């Protein structure tokens, strides 16, 4: 029986550093949309959210994982404590951070909502999916719904009276969303009869809220094949006009590797009676476009989930490495009588820890950068600057989703390695982190789908101007800092990496136009990684330079010195490891190696 103790730890100092020392959140506070917000409120939210997760969802992370969701007679029972945690969450209001005041929120910056979300995901990633998807559903309706729909659904979703889901996947329509066959037939009253089966629906059925609002992609009769023929529907489990049960049947739930406390459901719409939905907005056939808003939100959410779990795994491994005694210090390796040292004294353990530290801080920087672009898009008037911010936001979404999720798994397995045998046991939290993290690279569009989105759509947006602006930002940083005494070497290498990234993107264009399009998907994941590691090296080096400035001012014994020193080492280690790989990968892609395409299926 697992006990309800909180094992979650968060590096609040790094969050504050990012918000106020690197990305200048304070510049958008105290005015316009965020007039009521100041640095003090932001800091208070961070520390109160941290306290809340440690008290409320952190302690039930492990017990919920062990028990999982239970399916009986079409009902899903969530683990002990989930209902209470939900109630407490919406009383505290953390989900309202970035939400408009008219829907019960506090209109705070999205960047802050993302950092709060890191903590909520890190402390209990499975629980956080219920409110996360609920918020996503509310956002789509807020953006695309009719006034009537907004009135009926938004506030109730934003304040946790109801919960929400997103229903895309069907047995034959996974990555290929356009293959979906769920039907929507228009009725005389303008509403639609929904019929079909969706699978893998997260939080599709549970006992936390009285009603669940499903956002369902379905096809109207005669609509085009593929994604163009899909429309998006609001399908409540219980009709909101009081007419009762709406025939959304949960046929079963899946038994999974991780996120056991998040129900993953097979939903049959219209089994045993009519299931009625309403079209989001008033136009059919734009469902995919609408769903993209939800997917964008959810992709950022998944990257942040990755960040939360990676950071939690790193903190656990760090704590353990300081306590576990094993073997003598290397300088005494021949002396069996020598005192045993904590494993953090061993070189390889330090290497693993620094690698984990750099990666987590790197993803965090990417998430916060994305958040700041989103906030600026939100507050700026239309114009060049806003176009720029929007372009960077779009570019970063696939990076945050795919690199964030891949690294979450990497960091979590490294955490197990740091623990040794103990890490493989359920007595410690890291094996759960690892199991929970694996799904992040799969749902919300597999990471390959993200990579295709990056090279197929984002790179070419606005004639490549977004990507050029990204490279230009790095170029400006390199020009300014390449003579830095201690970091200049890495800054110069960053410049080379950015150049090779640009050259590789041009290569893609050449392949598209020169009849070698098959090379594009073959190279897409590698490119996404190159771009992510280049971006993160840049952001970590920028942090290191800020840190050097602060170190020059701080007194010799100031306790904050260790933090800034740590920043320098994160950057040096990460950039040192990764930038060379960017150059290597560019070279590899240049060779147009096609072995995976040339090998016949029989030869595998």
């Amino acid at each position, binding site marked *: 029986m697992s006990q309800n103790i909180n094992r979650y730890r968060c590096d609040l100092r790094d969050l504050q550093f990012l918000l106020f020392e690197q990305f200048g959140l304070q510049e958008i506070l105290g005015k316009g949309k965020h007039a*009521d917000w*100041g640095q*003090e*409120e932001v*800091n*208070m*939210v961070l*520390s*109160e959210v941290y*306290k*809340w997760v440690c*008290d409320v969802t952190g302690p039930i992370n492990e017990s919920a994982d062990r028990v999982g969701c239970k399916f009986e007679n079409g009902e899903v029972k969530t683990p002990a404590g989930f209902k*209470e945690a939900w109630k*407490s969450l919406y*009383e*505290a*209001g*953390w989900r*309202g*951070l970035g939400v408009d005041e008219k829907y019960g929120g*506090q209109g705070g910056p999205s960047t802050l909502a993302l950092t709060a979300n890191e903590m909520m995901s890190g402390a209990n990633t499975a629980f956080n999916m219920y409110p996360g998807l609920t918020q996503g559903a509310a956002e789509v309706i807020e953006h695309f719904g009719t006034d009537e729909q907004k009135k009926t659904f938004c506030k109730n979703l934003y304040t946790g009276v109801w919960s929400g889901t997103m229903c895309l996947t069907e047995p034959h329509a996974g990555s290929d969303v356009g293959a979906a066959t769920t039907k929507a037939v228009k009725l005389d009253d303008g509403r639609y009869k929904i019929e079909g089966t969706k699978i893998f629906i997260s939080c599709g059925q549970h006992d936390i809220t009285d009603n669940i609002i499903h956002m369902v992609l379905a096809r109207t009769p005669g609509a085009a094949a593929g994604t163009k023929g899909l429309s998006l529907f609001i399908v409540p489990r219980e009709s909101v006009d009081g007419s009762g049960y709406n025939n959304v049947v949960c046929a079963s739930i899946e038994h999974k590797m991780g996120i056991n406390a998040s129900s993953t459901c097979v939903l049959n719409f219209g089994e045993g009676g009519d299931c009625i939905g309403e079209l989001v907005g008033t136009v059919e056939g734009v469902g995919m476009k609408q769903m993209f808003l939800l997917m964008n939100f959810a992709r950022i959410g998944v990257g942040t989930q990755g960040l939360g779990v990676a950071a939690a795994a790193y903190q656990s491994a760090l704590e353990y490495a300081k306590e576990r005694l094993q073997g003598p210090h290397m300088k005494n390796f021949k002396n069996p009588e020598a005192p045993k040292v904590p494993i953090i004294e061993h070189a390889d353990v330090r290497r693993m820890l620094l690698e984990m530290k750099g990666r987590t801080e790197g993803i965090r920087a990417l998430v916060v950068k994305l958040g700041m672009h989103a906030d600026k898009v939100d507050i700026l008037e239309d114009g060049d600057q806003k176009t720029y911010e929007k372009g960077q936001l779009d570019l970063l979404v696939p990076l945050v989703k795919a690199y964030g999720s891949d690294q979450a798994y990497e960091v979590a397995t490294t955490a197990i390695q740091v623990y040794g045998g103990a890490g493989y046991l359920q007595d410690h939290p890291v094996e759960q982190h690892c199991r929970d993290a694996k799904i992040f690279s799969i749902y919300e569009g597999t990471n390959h789908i993200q990579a295709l989105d990056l090279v197929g759509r984002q790179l070419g947006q606005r004639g490549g101007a977004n990507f050029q602006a990204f490279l230009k930002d790095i170029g400006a940083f390199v020009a300014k800092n390449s003579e830095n005494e201690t970091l200049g070497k890495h800054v110069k290498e960053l410049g080379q990496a950015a150049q090779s990234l640009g050259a590789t993107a041009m290569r893609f264009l050449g392949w598209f136009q020169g009849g070698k399009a098959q090379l594009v998907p073959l190279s897409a994941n590698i490119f996404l990684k190159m771009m992510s590691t280049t971006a993160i090296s840049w952001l970590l080096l920028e942090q290191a330079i800020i840190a050097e400035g602060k170190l020059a001012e701080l007194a010799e*014994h*100031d*306790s*904050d010195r260790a933090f800034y020193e740590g920043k320098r080492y994160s950057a040096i280690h990460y950039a040192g490891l990764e930038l060379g790989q960017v150059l290597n990968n560019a070279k590899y892609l240049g060779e147009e190696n096609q072995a995976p395409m040339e090998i016949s299926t029989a030869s595998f």
Partner: protein
Amino acid sequence: MKILVPVKRVPDPELKANIKDGKLDLSGAQWVVNTFDEYAVEAALRLTENADEGSRDGEVVVVTIGPDDAAVQLRSCLAMGADRAIHVASEDANLDSLLVAKTLKAVYDEEKPDMVLLGKQAVDGDTNQVGQMLAALLNLPQATFAASIELADDGKACVVSREVDAGVEFKKLPLPAVVTVDLRIVSPTSITNGITPESHEYADGPRYASLKGIMKAKKKPMDNKTMADLGVSGSPVVKELEVTLPEARAAGQIVESVEELVKKLSEEAKAL
């Protein structure tokens, strides 16, 4: 009903204490509201509200004596729902229990609350003195280690239960009075104020500062005072000489039998 709640900031008790040169090294400390004081704030809020309707009925004034940064902890009490704050500037090193009690007396004289509600002790020094000293200085009735508080219908008295070795002791105090609280004061039905229906069940524990509460806290008044403003002077009578960690416990031994245990206890440990 007006309640004065003195609160103290303490280094986060969940983090390890660092000792340097015979002193606590607090340079990297994370500061939080003393746990028992947070309970006192919760109890005060429950005494002055209708929880079913979410409305306030009374005033909770939080006061701290401490350095500039301690304003952060006052703000978190305001974010929990307290109505107003008083910050008396002082460095921790210049204080001891008696000076704190004297300062609180001066605040009491200005504020004239119906009740002073405080934690039974601060979890840093664990001295457990301020409440008692304050009651003595004010010559007011006191009840310490309160596990529940019930307000009389006329609002002129309260019944406090205290868990003692022999059971539960009930004390009826005329108001104004000084009450210090123990951890059970935040259990779901520990407070009865005659306004919140008896059927209301609170969550166990102090409430969280809500997002709304945080946004409102900035607009709530915070008075800044010095001890001189309050006419309090003097230096601490208690001096801290040195801080050391308790000695590490020696490793235990596993014995095979009761006989061996008894033998070891009598011969090696000389405990028998």
